[in-house]
């Protein structure tokens, strides 16, 4: 039942949500890095988790928000696939999306709530984008822009780095079909509309999460790159190939030749196939040089499992086509294998998460939080070693401030930025940068009022001993050791970077959630056109869309 | 006179009547009260009033019958200091001050003895500071004689008597020539407090060693029992450093004393010179001739 809570980023998402729960109007969070701004992370899913957390508690709130993302993606996929293939194939694509391996990977393994939300909202917006490109009109324009802005307020990667894979095929399709149907248009008009909506979307996203852009432009990513295994070559490192290719793709790999073949042979599907293909190559991370060529410096900041997710979403319309054809031809003989393959694809990441758990450190953080919260211990700062992603849970439960944290994009402490390690907590996995960062932080403990280090991994003991730290207490029957340094002055407020201004706090509290509610309301207004292709055709031919006008 | 003026006059008389009937409250306060003792406050006037007493760390309020004395039982006002007393009746009130003084009988001492450990034979090395409190933890500021007594198991006791000033008395004592635990006692008016001072040996004195070949052919370096200049054995665990030099090479080893002696076995070439030291105290030097 609580499997999603075991995924890697879940605790961090809940940590952010917990802050919004208690300080909705103040995104400055002092619990990590002596203070950082949560405006450096688009807030929508965490804010919804916080709102629902008041009713259901943070854990169930988180899972409910994750569930909504999956449900929205299914709805969005039905409408998006309907642009490319017939209604039956679109419905199969919609069904397949909930069994998608990378979706399952993100939910159960990576815990990337923000990615699943951005994708769901983005896919919801795409049919309105196509309608605007093809036919114009204010209604689809406004709906698309508001939904794109909502997607941007959930996460920024898809709107910055992933948008080309989704929108270029739609622009190409709109141009290809400009003369078909009753309402004809021109290539110039399509391009002009594309430019117009790009500008409108950019403005909308800029406004909705303006504090985010202010923070980004004020502090562009300058810290040393942190290694991430999704940038590995999956052939040279088969383990990561398993983790980032085999597991997320699952049985969908079997359909890859069909997707290429069908996309290459069908003029309408060609742009989609090409968009899928490039995204697929990017999702391979360091296996090909494509991602590096495309993203340059950003390559070392991005992680690429999300591009696999995008690629799978892009593949689904053609996969839906394959499924509908197989079912139409073989009936139950196709249904059963497809269902089995779907279950395997969905189940593989869950099984993999159990076989190679990302959150395998079994630790009770409650006693550590209690220790910190009593006797004035929280007058000093702390960090942990060997806690894994439990540091976010500890951050939720304690009042004390840490010099460490899991949100690397807004850490401004020189000791953490300089060496290219991840968090101090897992510094041993980032040789040599992680160890250098740890040494630097130990060296400068006095500056930060850093008096406590909670150790769950004796591997670090020699470093603490020789740096002048002493073992002073044990918590939870020795599961956690408390190391301390003498002569450290109490922590005093330190601001690295700039706190958001009051008006930014207000914007951050109102616009993202407000825009998402507006997006939902607009989405519920019936469409003038129904873009899903009807009829029993296989969708493999080049016939135009059938526009079914609805009373509205 | 118009009707309205008659009305105003009647209304004013009606309102003023009770005020004229009630007398302003008054009280008579004792100037000084000993902490924790009972006392009474006589009040004047009539009707009900409210007595409020506010002082250091304490505040109390009571309803009183004006004209009757108010008894404050023992143990109610116990913090020494100035208290403000306010007797109020409606909008009228009278205020006064009471000084609560500490009880003169000492009940407890805070005795700060520093250090808890010091070398033997150190003049004025021990300081003792006493704060004298009454039973309610009020510092007794009136002068009182405090007796300091430092005694060890062998030597004669050192005794000083110091009169407190503003509740504090302090003195300095010498550490004994013999190591051991000394009892440092401060007493005043039958109340005493005891601290234990560890008088420990000083730096090693006349540090010396010998070297003999052991069974394996190595040099066995051994100090004589290490003592300070007063003849006290240096505590076990104290580090003694042996340094052997030969032909530009050097070997060192830090050895803790065990049963007054430090010993170690080192592979030494013939002709090596060996020295011994402990802290900043150097000992003898010998030349190793091998077998």
């Amino acid at each position, binding site marked *: 039942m609580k499997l999603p809570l075991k995924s890697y980023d879940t605790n961090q998402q809940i940590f952010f949500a917990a802050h919004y729960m208690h300080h909705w109007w103040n995104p400055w969070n002092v619990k990590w890095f002596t203070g950082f701004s949560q405006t450096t992370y688009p807030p929508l899913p965490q804010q919804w988790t916080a709102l629902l957390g008041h009713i259901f508690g943070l854990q169930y709130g988180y899972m409910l928000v994750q569930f909504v993302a999956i449900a929205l993606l299914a709805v969005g996929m039905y409408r998006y696939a309907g642009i490319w293939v017939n209604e039956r194939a679109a419905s199969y694509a919609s069904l397949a999306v909930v069994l998608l391996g990378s979706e399952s990977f993100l939910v159960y393994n990576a815990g990337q709530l923000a990615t699943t939300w951005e994708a769901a909202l983005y896919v919801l917006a795409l049919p309105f984008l196509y309608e605007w490109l093809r036919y114009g009109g204010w209604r689809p324009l406004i709906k698309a822009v508001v939904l794109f802005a909502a997607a941007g307020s959930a996460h920024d990667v898809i709107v910055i780095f992933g948008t080309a894979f989704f929108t270029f095929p739609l622009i190409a399709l709109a141009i290809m079909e400009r003369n078909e149907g009753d309402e004809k248009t021109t290539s110039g008009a399509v391009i002009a509309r594309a430019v117009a909506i790009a500008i409108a979307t950019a403005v909308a996203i800029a406004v909705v999460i303006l504090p985010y852009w202010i923070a980004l432009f004020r502090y562009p990513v300058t810290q040393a790159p942190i290694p991430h295994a999704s940038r590995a070559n999956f052939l040279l490192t088969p383990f990561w190939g398993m983790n980032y290719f085999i597991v997320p793709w699952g049985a969908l790999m079997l359909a890859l030749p069909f997707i290429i*073949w069908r996309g290459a*042979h069908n003029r309408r599907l060609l742009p989609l196939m090409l968009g899928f293909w490039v995204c697929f190559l990017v999702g391979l991370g360091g296996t090909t040089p494509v991602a590096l060529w495309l993203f340059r410096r950003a390559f070392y900041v991005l992680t690429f499992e999300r591009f696999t997710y995008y690629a799978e979403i892009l593949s689904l319309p053609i996969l839906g086509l394959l499924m509908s054809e197989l079912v139409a031809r073989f009936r139950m003989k196709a249904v059963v294998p497809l269902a089995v393959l779907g279950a395997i694809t969905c189940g593989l990441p869950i099984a993999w998460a159990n076989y190679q758990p990302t959150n395998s450190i079994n630790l009770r953080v409650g006693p550590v939080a209690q220790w910190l919260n009593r006797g004035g211990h929280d007058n000093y700062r702390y960090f942990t070693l060997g806690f894994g992603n439990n540091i976010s849970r500890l951050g939720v439960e304690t009042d004390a401030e840490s010099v460490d944290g899991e949100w690397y994009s807004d850490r401004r402490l020189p000791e953490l930025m300089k060496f290219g390690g991840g968090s101090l907590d897992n510094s041993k996995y980032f040789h040599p940068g992680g160890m250098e960062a740890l040494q630097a932080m130990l060296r400068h403990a006095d500056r930060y009022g850093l008096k406590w280090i909670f150790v769950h991994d004796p591997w670090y003991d*020699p470093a603490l001993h020789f740096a002048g730290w002493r073992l002073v207490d044990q918590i939870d029957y020795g599961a956690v050791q408390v190391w301390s340094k003498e002569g450290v002055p109490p922590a005093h407020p330190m601001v690295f970077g700039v706190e958001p201004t009051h008006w930014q706090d207000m914007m951050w509290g109102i616009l993202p959630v407000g825009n998402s509610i507006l997006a939902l309301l607009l989405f519920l207004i019936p469409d003038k056109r129904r873009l899903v292709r009807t009829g029993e055709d296989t969708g493999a031919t080049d016939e135009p869309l059938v526009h079914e006008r609805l009373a509205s | 006179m118009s009707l309205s003026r008659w009305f105003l006059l009647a209304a004013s008389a009606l309102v003023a009547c009770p005020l004229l009937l009630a007398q302003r409250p008054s009280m008579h306060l004792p100037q000084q009260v000993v902490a924790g003792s009972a006392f009474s406050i006589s009040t004047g006037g009539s009707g009900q009033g409210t007595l409020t007493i506010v002082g250091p760390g304490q505040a109390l309020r009571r309803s009183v019958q004006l004209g009757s004395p108010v008894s404050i039982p023992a143990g109610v006002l116990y913090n020494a200091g100035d208290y403000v007393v306010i007797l109020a009746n409606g909008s009228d009130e009278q205020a006064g001050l009471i000084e609560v003084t500490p009880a003169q009988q000492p009940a407890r001492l805070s005795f700060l003895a520093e250090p808890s450990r010091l070398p033997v034979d150190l003049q004025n090395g021990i300081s003792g500071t006493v704060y004298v409190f009454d039973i309610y933890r009020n510092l007794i500021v009136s002068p009182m004689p405090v007796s300091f007594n430092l005694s060890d198991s062998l030597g004669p006791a050192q005794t000083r008597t110091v009169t407190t000033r503003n509740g504090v008395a302090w003195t300095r004592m010498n550490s004994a020539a013999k190591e051991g635990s000394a009892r440092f006692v401060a007493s005043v008016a039958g109340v005493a407090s005891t601290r234990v001072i560890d008088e420990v040996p000083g730096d090693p004195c006349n540090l010396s060693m010998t070297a003999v070949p052991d069974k394996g052919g190595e040099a066995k370096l051994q100090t004589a029992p290490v003592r300070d200049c007063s003849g006290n054995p240096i*505590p*076990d*665990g104290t580090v003694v450093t042996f340094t052997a030099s030969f032909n530009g090479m050097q*070997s060192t080893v830090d050895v803790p004393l065990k049963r007054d002696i430090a010993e170690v076995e080192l592979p030494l070439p013939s002709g090596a010179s060996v020295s011994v030291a402990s802290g900043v105290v150097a000992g003898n030097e010998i030349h190793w001739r091998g077998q």
Partner: protein
Amino acid sequence: MKGTFLAIAVAAATVILIAVGTIWPIPSAVYFAGSGNGNILRSPSTPEIAIQNLGIRIRQHQLPAAYKSLANKAEFTQLAFDEDIDGFYTSLRTQATLETVSAQPLHESADQADVRVTFHWSTVLGPYNETRNIHVVRNGNNWQVDWPLVTRPSVPPQVIPVNYLRWDVIYSGARDEWGSQNVAGPNVRIVDMRPVNRAEGVYVLGELLNDDVVPAWVDVRATLVGKDGRILGSEDSFEMISHRLLPKQVTPFRIHFPDVDLSQVASIRMHPESILISASADPVIAILNQKYSALPTASLSGQLSDQSGQIVNFTHVLTTFYDANGNVIWVSGRFIGRALAPQVPVNFTVPVPEDLAQKIRSERTIVAAYSPKGVAL
């Protein structure tokens, strides 16, 4: 027809791009593929490649594959090789990750070569280098490494009597009355101190004595005050000190102030800190055969010998260097990669800056040791 061609082109392009990414991997792929040198496993056609391949396998901790690649694997077991790489007991070496391998050819013929190989390890206590002369032999078209195995030191079975000496401390409770007696902290004293100006900043060097009869946990903090009274910096000795001092023990200390020039400094405030701790007098470690050599590389070398019966897992050698007048001119230290087994000497080398090499006339070395409780030896 066009569609078929396009599908084949897409598939071919995919294969080509994957091949390009695999044959000429990008830096992030190389990082995860196991080599900090920017290389991945290649056919061992030269002695250097054979050594680099071995380094990659060690870095990835593929020790069975590394063992299989050796020319002389028949001479020892896989276990012996694993122990040589990982350390025989818990030590800095067991917690190290090989970062890079640098090779310097010494001699090469058609069939064999001698290479001086430096293994650059990254450890919990910072970088640590180990140099070995390795013989490489040609086997057909490939080169294979003749691994110079370091075997587990064998200690003859024996009983080493230890009069277990230990201090334990009971402090007064936090709820005790004000003024109640507590155990006083140890008296420590700075017996020598000297600031030194160097290109990398100001160093404050000195020695600290535990002048008490109880063990102490010590640290030294220095604060540099500028000529205008401004604080230029405040740093502590960090790892360049032996934090645990037994009675009458002396430790050197070195405090570094980067980006400060001594000409800016008007005064230095020294703050020795000490806490009474529970401690044991063991182990006793002898520092044997210390020899300072100014050439070719200025360093102090010697051997550590554990005189007690327990294994010492982590050791830090700290040396004070003095000039002809007996002034402290440098303090240097080096962590030892391997654990000290009883009575088995382990070599050490403490580096000295070249510009000080000729000024050094004497030195004094101590060893700081740490063995975690309950460690699996």
